[in-house]
């Protein structure tokens, strides 16, 4: 097991290195200058800046400086356009908590609802309740989150006036929760549907198996046998779909953040690209990659713990 984890961690670093290299080269070789096109900077100023940030040197050397700064000092460079002279890390530090909050809350709220819907559908298989759940699952999975977000914004936010139509960054406590309710709700639909669909299929299959019959023969009640034997067995494969959902925890809310004007990571990536704020773009891309790679790592390791067969496969 230890060997397996070490293997995966090494693979993670290699991949991350490749991504950093590609991202750095692509972003740096893009057309568009760091300086404003208006030309109100004198040539001397530009030269001085170039010298300070090493923009006048070959790209390979720049890459060397970049790697050195990142690994030795944890310094991702300085934002040039979005918030001039602020370290990239600082710029991101303000944005990350909002995105994390919205995504994590929506995910943690969605999973129990999805579980409940899946269990009900599986127990009441082929009844009107099951059909209703299946119908909602198809709708929730198919309709894009931004359509839901738009509907919620218009009907719940604007027509009913129940919740603020855009996110209020200055609110605190309950008011903050109140203002981020709609984005959270918009992000919940898809995880609910995924969990419900998967659990229904799994549980319905487990319910037909022979150990369930045995459990009932032993004298367990319907609820006892379902919860202790049926549900527990369905949970193992369910972990395989719930854990990867956390990989989307930073990327998935991009559009919804945009719609509700949430000052999160989503808007910043596009803004930094459009503003040619190269250092910031590289940092954001690497950041996204890192989160998703770490999630994949966690998924792999947890598979290994849940299902020993995977561990064996990793050793070969």
């Amino acid at each position: 097991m230890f060997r397996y984890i070490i293997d995966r961690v090494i693979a993670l670093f290699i991949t991350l290195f490749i991504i950093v290299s590609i991202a750095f080269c692509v972003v740096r070789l893009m057309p568009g200058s760091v300086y404003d096109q208006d030309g109100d900077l004198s040539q001397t100023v530009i030269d001085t800046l170039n010298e300070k940030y090493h923009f006048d040197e070959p790209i390979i050397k720049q890459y060397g400086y970049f790697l050195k700064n990142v690994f030795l000092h944890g310094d991702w460079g300085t934002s040039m356009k979005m918030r001039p002279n602020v370290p990239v890390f600082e710029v991101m530090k303000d944005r990350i908590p909002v995105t994390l909050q919205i995504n994590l809350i929506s995910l943690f709220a969605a999973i129990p609802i999805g579980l409940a819907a899946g269990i009900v559908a599986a127990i009441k298989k082929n009844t009107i309740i099951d059909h209703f759940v299946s119908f909602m699952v198809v709708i929730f999975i198919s309709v894009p989150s931004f359509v839901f977000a738009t509907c919620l914004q218009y009907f719940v936010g604007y027509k009913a006036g129940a919740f603020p139509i855009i996110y209020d960054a200055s609110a605190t406590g309950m008011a903050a929760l109140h203002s981020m309710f709609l984005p959270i709700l918009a992000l919940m639909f898809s995880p609910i549907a995924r969990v419900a669909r998967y659990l229904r299929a799994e549980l319905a299959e487990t319910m037909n198996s022979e150990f369930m019959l045995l459990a009932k023969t032993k004298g367990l009640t319907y609820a006892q046998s379902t919860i202790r034997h049926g549900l527990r067995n369905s949970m193992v494969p369910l972990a395989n779909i719930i854990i990867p959902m956390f990989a989307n925890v930073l990327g998935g809310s991009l559009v919804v953040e945009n719609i509700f004007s949430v000052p999160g990571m989503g808007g910043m990536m596009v803004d930094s690209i459009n503003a040619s704020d190269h250092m910031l773009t590289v940092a954001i891309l690497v950041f996204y990659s890192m989160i998703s790679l770490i999630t994949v790592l966690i998924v792999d390791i947890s598979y290994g713990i849940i299902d020993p067969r995977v561990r064996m496969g990793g050793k070969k």
Partner: protein
Amino acid sequence: MVLYEDNKAKYDAVSKDLFRLVQRDEKIHDVEFKTKPIGFFMDVWLRFVKNKASVIAAVIILIISFFAVFGPGMNEYTYDEQHTELTNMPPKVPFIAKMNLGFFDGGYTMENRKYDNLNDPEKYPEGCILEVINPRLVNGERIVDVVVDYYKYKGLSDEQCFWFGSDYLGRDIWTRMWRGARVSLIIAVVSVCCNVFIGVVYGSISGYYGGKVDMVMMRITEIINAFPRIVVVTLFIMVFGTGMFSIIMSLVIKDWVSTARMVRSQFYRFKGREYVLAARTLGVKDMALIFRHILPNSIGPIITSSMIAIPTAIFSESFLAYIGLGLQAPEPSIGVMLSRGQKVLLQYPSQVVFPAIIISLLMISFNLFGNGLRDAFDPTLRGAE
């Protein structure tokens, strides 16, 4: 000793009417095969049509495709024709407007108007007022909200109208929407075709040869898989610019991996079968073995997975449009229209409603259609992921 009494005479005396022949009337079915043998695809088709939801989904896809092809040519506007004096017009369809149903009548609610001015033909041209609502007294002034036929209010003739309204530049939403649906469908279908092609070739080589080849090829897919989708797509579009080609390629570059893996696992399942061994013994070349003997077995999963990939591609395209990496203006796509309409959602909701309905319908239909196909190709998978 007489063991058996000779009762023949006795039996002959019994009237024949008392006896009834059994089984004579019943038809014997399995004497010979009267029906034609059912082939694989016929079998699939029979199972598919049993699933009502997928059939309806298929019909909806066909209808949307029909409009995507012919819709933009159905009225006199083109997708990039601007009418600067007719921006943000509400939807109006003449014959529905005549029925007074309350929608598609060009109705637009103007709030806080003076009641006394309603009869002034200078301000409200003849017949433009549809409904007067919410009368109230503000500072002694009689104030009402007026629903007007915005086309008549602007002094247009009865014939001129935008069926689904117009956008912020006065472009016809009907034309743009169907053109956008066309663009979205083309992007989806082309990208899925590309990734099926690459995935099938890659997956079959990897699965057929196995061993070292397989290991190297699978490591490559693992590396590609490790790149987060959003990063790959963003980088790709940053390098190659926004446009149909780069959007399609950015979708292909990561999506073929899953097809390749699926095909590979199918190959692992079938390559050890006896019929493959028999074919190889007869001297069949590798290429023929791969494409004629083994690959057809995985045709079902391939079709199914590509059908399920289409809504993902449609979603990705509109997702890109939303974050500002979509097609360049004036070319419309559903995502571009949604993100533009989003900005004026509170004033002119109709600009979002139609594209949102179309994209939702398309996604739902393709998902249902894909599920139906999966059940039809492989009934044992029914209801599973």
